[in-house]
């Protein structure tokens, strides 16, 4: 038991995590490619035409996964930030920092694809509906987290300030998720919910799940790549960085 714990903590230092992340990245790229190819194939070639929305509904295969990821990445980011804050672990804070831009991108794409879906179906790119507004707030929370961290010169202080913002912002995630239940919204209710059989064809559901898995793997790969750059930036003064084969001259 103690041995196993030791092994886990070994990777909690940037020094040991840097090469591990480098080895893991190709695995996640490969998984993202496989899930993405399968998801797109199901979404475009197998899933039937929707009875009311025609082919326009196919936006669901990218809209729902980006929306899920925008919320999920926020929770993971806040989790890492909390760990960095409570355990004073540098790597945890770096992980939170690495996830933020990808989360912001997912939130943006969720809003973008939502607008492109809203226009043909509702007749408008945007409404101040509870679901849309709370997702926009999520996007701003990501930007706020990044801007705050960038504005503080001392990285450890930036980590702490960012963590507090990230943790306060967590309250927004359940608001987004339940907004379609709590308020009367133009946005439709949840397509998939726990304890409820999905209200769609099985192939549609699988297409959506595979695309979500693809974006999940993509996010991990991208976050690991970004955290490697952040590690080098923040550990530039250390000897182990100077001993790296890509740095040594």
């Amino acid at each position, binding site marked *: 038991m103690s041995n196993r714990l030791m092994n886990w903590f070994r990777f909690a230092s940037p020094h040991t995590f840097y090469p591990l992340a480098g080895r893991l990245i190709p695995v996640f790229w490969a998984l993202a490619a496989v899930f993405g190819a399968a998801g797109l194939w199901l979404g475009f070639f197998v899933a039937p035409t929707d009875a009311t929305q025609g082919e326009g509904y196919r*936006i669901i295969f990218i809209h729902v996964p980006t929306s899920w990821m925008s919320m999920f990445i926020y929770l993971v980011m806040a989790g890492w930030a909390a760990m960095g804050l409570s355990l004073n672990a540098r790597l945890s804070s770096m992980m939170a920092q690495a996830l933020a831009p990808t989360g912001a991108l997912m939130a943006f794409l969720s809003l973008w694809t939502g607008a492109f879906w809203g226009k*043909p179906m509702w007749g408008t790119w945007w409404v101040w509906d509870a679901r849309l507004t709370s997702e926009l707030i999520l996007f701003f929370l990501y930007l706020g987290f990044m801007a705050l961290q960038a504005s503080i010169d001392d990285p450890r202080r930036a980590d702490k300030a960012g963590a507090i913002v990230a943790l306060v912002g967590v309250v927004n995630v359940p608001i987004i998720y339940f907004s379609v239940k709590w308020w009367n919204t133009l946005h439709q209710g949840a397509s998939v919910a726990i304890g409820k059989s999905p209200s769609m064809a099985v192939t549609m559901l699988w297409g959506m799940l595979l695309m979500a898995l693809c974006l999940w793997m993509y996010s991990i790969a991208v976050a690991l790549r970004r955290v490697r*750059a952040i590690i080098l930036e923040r550990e530039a003064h250390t000897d182990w960085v100077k001993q790296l084969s890509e740095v040594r*001259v």
Partner: protein
Amino acid sequence: MNWNSAGEFFAMGGYALYVWGSFGVCALAFLVEPILIASRHKQIVRTLRRQVAAEKLEMETK
């Protein structure tokens, strides 16, 4: 199979602008993000290399 021809596929039943506008921008984003990160990584590696080289030079001239 939902489509009889490639043209039909790209027309998306009249929703081409919306479907490809969504998927296109997402595809672009997922291409650009890794490129930006790769250049960030390259930049810090270049800076570190310069630092290490400078230190080495300092040691040799001492």
